C-alpha cells in the first residue's frame, strides 16, 4: 500500500496546525496558574466528573515551588506546562514535525460499541496487515513530552499510518488535550450505540462474570454480538439470546 502523506491532506486542514497550537503557546506564557490556564484552554476542565472542579495536570512553577516546600516527597509527581510542552521554540519544532506526519486515525470510543470491528474495517481500508498489531495502545492518557510523542508515534506507525482504537480515550481529558498538540491532523472516530444495550454489554464482559458457573448451564448461553441489539432486534425482550441447545 502506498504512502498517503501530506499530499492527500486538505491544504486547509494542513495549515490549521498553526492555529491549533497557538492557544498552547499562549497557555505556556500565561501559565501562572495551571488550572486557570487549563480552563481557558478547555472550559470543560472545570466541569469534570460529578460537577466538581478537578485540577488539570498543568501547574505553574510557583505552584510547583509551593508543593516542593509543603510536600517534598511528591514534587516529582507534579508536571508543569513547561515540563510537558516546553517553550515556544520546542513547540515550533514540533509543528514542523506535525506538518510531515499527518496520517493518524484514532477511534476514541465508546467501549462496547463496536470499536474492535471498526478498527478491523479501518485497517482493511488503510491496507494495514501487520501481525504485531495492537488495537488498543493506551498511551495518550498519560501526559508526556513532545519529544516522547514524536518518538512514540513514529515508532508505532505502520506503513506511515498511526492507528489507535483505545475506547477509553473518549473519557480522557488528558488524551484529548494531548492529541490537540501531538497529532493536530488526526482523524477521530466515535462509534455509538443504544446506551442501554451498551450498559448491558459492558456488564457482560468476561471479567465481570464469575467462573463458578456450571459448564452445562453456561454452554447454552451466549453473549449477544454488537449488532444483535437495538433496532435490528426490535426490542428489549430479544436483547439476550440463547444459543441453540445441543
Amino acid at each position, binding site marked *: 500500500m502506498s504512502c498517503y502523506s501530506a499530499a492527500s491532506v486538505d491544504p486547509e486542514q494542513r495549515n490549521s496546525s498553526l492555529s491549533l497550537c497557538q492557544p498552547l503557546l499562549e497557555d505556556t506564557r500565561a501559565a501562572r496558574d495551571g488550572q486557570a490556564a487549563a480552563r481557558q484552554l478547555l472550559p470543560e476542565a472545570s466541569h*469534570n466528573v460529578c460537577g466538581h472542579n478537578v485540577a*488539570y495536570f498543568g501547574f505553574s512553577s510557583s505552584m510547583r515551588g509551593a508543593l516542593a516546600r509543603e510536600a517534598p516527597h511528591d514534587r516529582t509527581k507534579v508536571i508543569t506546562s513547561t515540563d510537558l510542552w516546553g517553550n515556544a521554540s520546542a513547540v515550533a519544532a514540533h509543528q514542523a514535525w506535525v506538518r510531515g506526519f499527518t496520517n493518524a486515525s484514532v477511534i476514541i470510543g465508546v467501549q462496547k460499541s463496536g470499536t474492535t470491528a471498526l478498527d478491523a474495517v479501518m485497517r482493511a481500508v488503510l*491496507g494495514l496487515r501487520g501481525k504485531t498489531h495492537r488495537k488498543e495502545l493506551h498511551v495518550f492518557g498519560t501526559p508526556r513530552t513532545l519529544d516522547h510523542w514524536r518518538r512514540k508515534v513514529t515508532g508505532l506507525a505502520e506503513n506511515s499510518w498511526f492507528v489507535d482504537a483505545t475506547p477509553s480515550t473518549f473519557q480522557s481529558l488528558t488524551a484529548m488535550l494531548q492529541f490537540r498538540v501531538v497529532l493536530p491532523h488526526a482523524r*477521530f472516530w466515535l462509534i455509538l450505540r443504544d446506551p442501554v444495550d451498551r450498559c448491558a454489554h459492558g456488564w*457482560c464482559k468476561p471479567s465481570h*462474570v464469575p467462573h463458578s458457573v456450571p459448564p452445562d448451564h453456561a454452554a447454552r448461553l451466549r453473549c449477544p454480538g454488537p449488532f444483535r441489539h437495538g433496532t435490528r432486534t426490535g426490542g428489549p425482550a430479544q436483547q439476550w439470546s440463547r444459543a441453540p441447545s445441543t
Partner: protein
Amino acid sequence: MESRAFNVAVHQELRDLALRCTHISQRLLGSKKGINATGAAQIASLLGAPLRVTNLHESNARQYTTLPACLQQSCWLRPIGRTADAGCKEYLIRGLVSKNLVAWRRHAGRRLAVLRLEDVFSNLTRTARVLAAMVGVPMPTATWQQQALSQLLAKDGCFHGCQTAKVNQTEHLHVMNAAAERKLVAFYAADQAALRRLEPSMRWPRFDTERARLQTPEATAELEEGTRSRPASR
C-alpha cells in the same frame, strides 16, 4: 469480579452515584433505599462530563483542588490515584456521551466523525467507502482487503469470540427486567436528547417514547410538526 445480577448491579450503581456523587441522596432514598426511574433521571442530570485527568498525585490534588472526598479516596469514578482499576465498573457512566462529545467536537471539529453502530454494520461496503473518503485513501480493492471485510460480515460483526469467551454466564445474570430498563432509559434520556441536538442521526427507538414523555421543546416541536403534516381525516 462481578458477582451481582445485572439488574442488581444497575440498581446498586445508581444508588452509589446518588450517594457519592450528588447531594440529593436523602431525597431520593426512602426507607427502602430504592431509586425509581425519576430518581435515576435526577441523578443523571446532576452529573458532569465524565472526563478524566491523570498523573496528578493524590496528596497534591487533595491539597490544592476542590475534589470531593469520594474522589480523593475510593470512588470508582475518581480521576486520580495509583490504582488503575478504579474505573472497572463504569458501565453506567460511560453511556453518558453528550457532554464529552461537545468537548471533543470543540477540540477536533470536522475531523471527528460520529458513527452509529447499526448503520456501520448494516452496510460494510458503504462504511468502508466513507472511511476511505474521510481519511483520503482510495477504496480497498485488494483481494485480502475484500476478504477481511467479508470475514467481518461472516463473524456477524463481533471480533471478540463471543461464543467462546463469554459463554461462562448464567441466565439469571443476563435478564434485564422491566424495572431496570425503565431506570436505565430514564438515566440516559436527557443525555440522549442532548446527543440528538448535537448529532440528529444518533437516535435509537428505545428513547423515542421517553423523549415524548419528557415533553422537551424539541420533542413538542416534532410532535406539532407531525400533526401539521398529517392529512386531516373526516
